[in-house]
Structure formats: C-alpha cells, structure tokens
C-alpha cells in the first residue's frame, strides 16, 4: 500500500476556452446612454457601448476595421461612433456609414455588432460563439416592479474579480454551507431545481443572534429571518427575490447578481437592489434600506472574493451528504459552453435536490451559542 492510494488528489480539467452562450447584463442603461462611448472588456475582447441621438444602445467590437483605432476612445456623432484615429463612422449595425475624407466606403466595411436587449433598466448583450441570433424562447424574465412607484430605483454596484473563472460564483447557487460560513446567514431550508436554462435556489434563513446589532433600534431592526427565491436565467444573470422578516413587518427586495467574463480568469461582477416601499415606511427609509442591503451584499461578495483569490479550481469536489448538487449544477452549466446542437437532455432535464438541514442546523445553533458566549465574555 502506498500513500498515493490513500490521498485524494484534486483534479483540474481543461478550463473552458470559450465564453458562455446567453444573455449577459452589461449594466444599467441609464449609465450607458450619456452620449459617450463606454469601453467594456468582455468575452476576451474589447467592446464599445454607445447610444446615438436616437437613444438606441449599440455594442460593437471596439477596434476599427480601418487601422485598428479604439472606438471606445472615439466620439459619438449622430447615431454613429467616430473613430479617434481617422474619423471613420460606424453604425450600430456594425456597418461603416461614412468616411468624411473619402468618396465612398470600401466593400466589406463591417465590424462585429452584438445583439442587445434593454429591459427593466438593464442592458443585455447576447453572446454566442457560433454567431447565432438569440432564440425567441431564450429570454430574461421581466421584473415589472422596476417601473412600479412602490419600489425604489436600482442601486447598482460593479466590481472586477481577478484571478477566478466565473464558474466560482455560479457554484454558489448550490453551496448551502458557505452561506453560513461566508455570508453570516443561517439556512434552514434549501432546495435547488434545474430545468432548461434556469437554475433555482429556494432558501429560508433564520436570523443570527451572533451577528445582530447588540442593541436593535428603529433604524436597525432585528431580522428574524429571510425567505429567498433565486434563479439563474441563463449562464450569468440571477434574480433573487428576498423577503426580510422583521418583528412587525416583512420587506420585499429584488436583487440582481450578474456577471460577464472579461477572459477565462477574470470577470466583472455586478449587483443591483430594489426595495418595496411598504405602507408606513417613508421613501427615504426604503432608500436607506436598499443602500444598507447593498452594503451588506457588497460585504458578502468581498468575503467570496477573499476565498476565490486563493482557492484552487477543483473539478472533483469531495462532497458530504449535506452539500448541495455541485456536480449536477456544473452539468447544467455545461450546456452554455457547448455548441447548441451538442446540448444533451442530461444538461437540461429537470433535476431537484433538497438538502436535509437537520444536522447542519444543530451544528450552527451550537456555533452561534459559542459566539454569543464569547461576546458576553
């Protein structure tokens, strides 16, 4: 017998050399419609996002097909982006519309343009390595609450994650235990459902006495628990409906957790929050709550990032029965990285996994008690 037989080795498969097929949110439309070009590094490329006089948001490859100028450093003129190098004008359809110093535009003066969707205040682009247009049935669900006066406006954050493939953040959707250890939550119910291009997470959480404010106040009330229905709609865009239960009321929030890959080893993480303005809560208090929730989520992601920065990529995770369906999630996720004709039923067939939280909850109750005892000194 050798020690080699006894030690479990971490296995790392070839990382994906392509970027996921699907709708990716690039940010809020309001931040991208200021008449200026915006540089977005995504899908291993440099893109330029600009809105012309007609208000339409366009996404093009940033490098001018003339002499390679960077269109994201150019100027929006009319409905076109003008290259800073020689003023060649490119339309949102990817065609060169005009060269001010030339009699005519040469043949094949066309650059890559990306299908876009503006919905509920957000800009999405369709990425498909095969170059197919977005199928009609591959959509992002509407969030009518965004246009509802009874809800706050988006609070939006963006952060660049270096040194990690975006699969790390997608793994979180099944990782119940990390919500206790990394995010100061206390999951009491946890179920995943994958079907088609959606991956759901149903989670109920209890409040944690050991992370509550020592003295709750009107502006800092005690959260008794949370009810959350979160879902990835496609490879990168998650909507999370979270209800916070307080002693005298429930507050509904809708969170967005989305990302787009910069390259194989970095991605841009974005998250947004809207909060329902309940009767008896002033607009200012609702905005304050949205801001506070945002800060809490920001802190949570920073905790994730600290882990991602030093962890290993692992394709053969060793799981206990109280862990979620990591392998089946990755099987679902794989559908976005193969050609559409190679998507197999096992990647998209409905799959359900409910965790037994009995043993985790016993252990966590004990740990919370220990933390409280330590706090009391």
């Amino acid at each position, binding site marked *: 017998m050798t020690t080699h037989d006894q030690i479990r080795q971490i296995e790392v498969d070839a990382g994906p050399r392509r970027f996921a097929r699907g709708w990716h949110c690039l940010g809020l439309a309001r931040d991208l419609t200021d008449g200026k070009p915006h540089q977005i590094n995504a899908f291993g490329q440099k893109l330029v996002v600009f809105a012309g006089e007609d208000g339409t948001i366009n996404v093009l490859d940033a490098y001018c097909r003339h002499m390679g100028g960077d269109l994201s450093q150019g100027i929006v003129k009319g409905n076109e982006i003008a290259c800073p190098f020689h003023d060649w004008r490119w339309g949102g359809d990817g065609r060169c519309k005009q060269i001010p110093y030339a009699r005519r535009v040469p043949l094949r003066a066309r650059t890559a343009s990306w299908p876009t969707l503006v919905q509920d205040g957000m800009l999405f682009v369709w990425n498909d390595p095969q170059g197919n247009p977005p199928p009609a049935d591959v959509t992002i669900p509407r969030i009518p*609450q965004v246009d509802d006066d009874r809800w706050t406006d988006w609070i939006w954050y963006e952060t660049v994650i270096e040194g990690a493939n975006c699969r790390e953040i997608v793994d979180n959707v099944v990782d119940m235990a990390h919500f206790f250890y990394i995010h100061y939550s206390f999951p009491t119910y946890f179920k995943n*459902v994958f079907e088609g291009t959606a991956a759901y997470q149903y989670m109920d959480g209890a409040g944690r006495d050991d992370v509550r404010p020592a003295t709750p106040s009107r502006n800092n009330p005690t959260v008794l628990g949370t009810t959350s229905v979160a879902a990835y709609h496609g490879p990168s865009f998650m909507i999370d409906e979270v209800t916070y239960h307080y002693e005298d009321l429930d507050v509904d929030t809708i969170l967005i957790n989305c990302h787009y890959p910069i390259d194989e080893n970095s991605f841009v993480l974005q998250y947004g929050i809207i909060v329902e303005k309940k009767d008896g809560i002033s607009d200012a208090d609702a905005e304050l709550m949205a801001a506070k929730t945002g800060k809490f989520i920001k802190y949570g992601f920073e905790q994730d990032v600290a882990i991602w920065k030093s962890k290993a990529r692992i394709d053969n995770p060793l*799981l206990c*029965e109280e862990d979620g369906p*990591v*392998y089946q999630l*990755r099987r679902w996720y794989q559908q976005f990285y193969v050609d559409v004709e190679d998507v197999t039923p096992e990647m998209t067939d409905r799959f*359900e*996994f409910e965790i037994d939280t009995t043993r985790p909850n016993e252990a966590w109750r004990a740990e919370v008690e220990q933390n409280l005892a330590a706090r009391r000194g």
Partner: protein
Amino acid sequence: MSTPRTDVRLDVRLEAAPMQPVGCGTCGATVLARKSSWDQTTLQWTAAALATCAERRTTTAGSERPNRNAFTGCSALTAAIRAAAVAGQLDVQSDEPLPTNPEAHP
C-alpha cells in the same frame, strides 16, 4: 499526466449509492431518486416523466414576480418517493430510524 477531461462528471456521492427508479402512483411517471436521509431527496426527471406529470400540467403562471412562475415540485411524487422509502423499495442511506412522531423532532 493524463489528458484533462471535458466530460460531465458523476456526483461522487452516487458512486457508492446510485439513483433508483421510483414510479408515481398518481400519473405513472417514473423518475430516478435517491435519499441520503429521510429529509434529503435527489430527483432526476426525464422529459417524458415531466410531460406525464399532472401537477405540472395544471400549474399556472400568473405571478407578477419574475421567479414565482416556476414549477416548484410535485406533491404526489414527493409522497410516492416517501412511500417507497418507508416501504423499503427506495434506500435511505442514513441509518437513522424513520421519525414517526414529528413533534418529537422539531
């Protein structure tokens, strides 16, 4: 050094205890299920089983909330899986006895 794998791997937990077929008494759909304990369930549907499921077909999408129109699960199938486990037709990996008095296990 072997060539890196690109296939989809099998859940390590299924190596020792694979999924087992369970039929639903209500609609006749057959799915694959696994229980590591009385309160844990893994459930693999096929397109055919999903098309057969009566509860699935009668689920209506009427919510204004983006995530609330999804089918959360079939109660008849949940009952069938539990019944199969109680009857010993579906293995329960944990050796804990069936909790017969829920009040004793809050």
